[in-house]
Structure formats: C-alpha cells, structure tokens
C-alpha cells in the first residue's frame, strides 16, 4: 500500500469521529488527530481498532501511543503492511 492510499483511507476512517469537518477537508500529514480534528481522546482507541480491521494489521499499545498526527498513523500502517 502506498502512503497516499493509506492517507486517503485513514482520513475516511477518522471522518465520523472528527468534530472539525473543515480541518478534515484540508488535512495534511501534520494534522494532529486530537486537537486539530477535534477527536475525543477516548475515540482514538476506536480509530486505531478501525485501522487494524481495515488494513488487517495489529498495532500494539506502544505503537498506538505514538500516533499523534495523520502522518504518524500512515507511517505505522505502511510499515505494518510491508511497503
């Protein structure tokens, strides 16, 4: 999976959890999931589990703790899917 493909899917997964729709439309790799997109911190777990289901990967607690931005999520997913 390419980083661009992963980015598109990541944004689509986060969409329902993001309170700031405008920030989501103009999201970049540097967009911070919690503060910029207005995602509730408790929902970050749901998002990570949705990544696992969508990309068929297992993200351990330590890796999950490091996901702050969309770029962090994309990098983790690309690394775990092997490309």
């Amino acid at each position, binding site marked *: 999976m390419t980083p661009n493909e992963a980015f598109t899917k990541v944004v689509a997964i986060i969409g329902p959890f993001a309170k700031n729709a405008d920030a989501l439309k103009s999201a970049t790799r540097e967009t911070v999931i919690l503060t910029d997109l207005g995602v*509730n911190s408790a*929902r970050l*777990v749901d998002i990570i589990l949705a990544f696992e289901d969508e990309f068929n990967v297992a993200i351990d607690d330590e890796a999950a*703790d490091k996901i702050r931005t969309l770029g962090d999520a994309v990098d983790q997913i690309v690394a775990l899917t092997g490309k």
Partner: protein
Amino acid sequence: MKRLSIKLQNLIAQISVPFTFGTAVLLLRGFLGYRWENLRDFRRKIRALLQKQEGPVILCPNHLTMIDSLLLIWAMTPAWRAIAKPQLFPWNTPEKRNFAHNPILRFFCYIGKCLPVVRQGPVDKTRAFMDKIRALLKKGQSLMMFPEGARSTSGRVDTENFAYGVGKIIDDVRKDGLKPKVLCLYLRGNRQTGKSSVPRRRNRFFIDAEVVEPTTPHSGLRAARDLATQIIQRLAGMEQAYFAR
C-alpha cells in the same frame, strides 16, 4: 521513590480518616442537607460483597457531579470501618486541572487518596500513572474510577462516548495474575436531572451496587474496549432499574 510516596500518602490518608470523613459528612449532611434513601441496606450489601475479597477491588460509578467521589465514600462506610478495612476507602483518580490550582483542594485530595491524572497528557506521564495504579491494585487496594471518563452531559449513563481506561486497567492487572473484583455503583439524587458541579441542596440519594465480571477473548486495546463496554452496559442497566421503580 514513587512507591514510597504512595505508601506515605496511604499512611497519612488512613490516619486522617476520622478528619476526612468527619469533614465530608459535616459538609454533605450538615451544610448541604443531603440524605440517603437506602444507606443501611447499601452498606450491608457492600460489606457482604467485599467480606471475602482479598484481592483488589475496582469501583465503577456513574458520574453526574463533581462531588460524586465524596458522596460515594460517605456512602460506602462509616469512618471507623474505613480505618479497619482500607479497601472501603478507595483511591480516586481526579483530573489534575480540576483541583491542582487550589492548595486547600490539593490537601484534601492528598488525604482523600487521590492520584491526579492529566487527560490527554504526555504518554510517559500517562504510563507512569498507570504503573502507580497497577502497583496499588497489586497491593490489594481498591480503586474508584468513573468508567464514563467524564460527567455525563445527557444526565444518563453515556453508553456512546465513554472512555476505555478502566478496561485497560482491568486487562493490565489480569496480565499480572490478579483477579480484581469489579463493582458497579449507581448513584442518583432525587433532585438530580442532569450534569452539575454540586447536587442541589436537600437531595435524597439512592445508591446501589452490583458485581460485574467482564470477560473478553481479546487483548490490548480491543480488550480494553470490550471490558469497559460491559461495565458501562451494566451501569446503564442499573439506571434503567432505578427509573423503572
């Protein structure tokens, strides 16, 4: 060092029980005029539920007001029993920003067995906090943690936007070989319609407790979500029973 500081806090808190409980009851009963609908029955139930429990206990109440912990500690036990059985005086995990600015509140939180948490704080601080909690539970102490993560904005148990922290703690301590007893507590004043800072004066409170034994085939985050969901569903069931009376 951290464990020593927790031991010291525990010792001071236990010594201060008569003062802490006395002040709480004076404030809640004397000044605010709160009363209980079923205190004796509730205390009898709690004693029966905890009598044979040697391991840790996790208390999971619903959350509507800023002083729920205080009310629950008052409800759980009279002061003398809390001195004899520290499990009846649980540790709490209040949000640091809610009290750290005020030295009087800080003092009462310290002797009230509070471990401050910073929600959405740095990962290393959150991890250190979780390590403290695990250490406490390993020592057989009890912990009160609001599974909703925040006061419910709807006035009812929030079955949609709740946190999974309590599930993570249960999953973690089970990995340590512990079998914590999970007690769901449902608390509601008769004049409580929704979320508030302090319940209105002369509220008459109802309280109930039920044991829940959450299970999950998963591990990690998925386990945390599973376990927390079962606790929230039990609380929602207790709320339904309250309104159906």
